[in-house]
């Protein structure tokens, strides 16, 4: 998730305006708007300061890089929205069948 998304998410979750967030860290509303649009990328430290000004915190840890869903997403994007939903539903029906079979097998 990009810093622009994190800042927007934190502000909306705390229910404040861009102007109010700017006031809390002594920056203008237009500067906050530029960060949220991704027109300007703030430093990690500034991103953290903005999130904390919203009354939230950003927990961070190093993790193994995982892009295991990326190919599935790319394949889905080649479908229309209705086809994406239909395919997900077909998969879900398959899982339901397996769950029922598993429950039956367990007696």
């Amino acid at each position, binding site marked *: 998730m990009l810093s622009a*998304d994190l800042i927007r998410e934190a502000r909306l*979750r705390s229910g404040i305006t861009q102007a109010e967030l700017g006031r809390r860290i002594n920056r203008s509303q237009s500067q906050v708007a530029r960060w949220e649009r991704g027109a300007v990328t703030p430093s990690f430290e500034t991103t953290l300061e903005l999130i904390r000004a919203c009354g939230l915190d950003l927990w961070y840890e190093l993790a193994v890089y995982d892009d295991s*869903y990326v190919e599935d*997403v790319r394949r889905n994007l080649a479908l229309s929205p209705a086809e994406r939903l239909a*395919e997900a*539903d077909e998969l879900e029906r398959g899982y339901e069948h397996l769950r029922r079979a598993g429950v039956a097998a367990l007696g």
Partner: protein
Amino acid sequence: MSSSVDTSTSDAPASRRLAEFRQRPLLEALVRHGVDFVVIGAVAAIAQGYPLTTRDLDVTPAAEPGNVERLAAAIRDLDGKLRVTGGDPVPFPAEAAFLGNVQSWTLDTRGGDLDVLFEPAGTRGYDDLKTDAVDVDLGGGLVVAMASLRDVIRMKEAAGRPKDRAQLPALRQTLEVVRERERR
């Protein structure tokens, strides 16, 4: 202001014919009754490329009284009952005054499971979500507003339950791939 999501002709193999998705009757009923709503949760994400599955439909309706009246009519039309874990669905009075006084409803309907949330976690409800929603064309004249991927992520983050958090890696990767595609 709603934007639209890519609904261009599919380039999926023509030989593959998928059945209709199960949430369509619910969406059609809500649209037929003129309900203003935004689809949230997994259905919104799947329509935008998210690769996992779901059974139910989650929606956030506008909370103004006229809209709640229309929602109540749609729920009655769908024979909506309260969904009870491990038990039979329970009939209830689907009246606007009753519906509008409770933040969320989990319903069993003729068209499948329907969850109604007036103010999902991390949001201020319909107007908040509508701002960044995308209009998704589901074919057959059915066009519905769906929460943007970043708002689906916002709600999952704010809800914070293990089942919500488990969906975040796939949601974030979906957003990244969509962004990458938009940049090209």
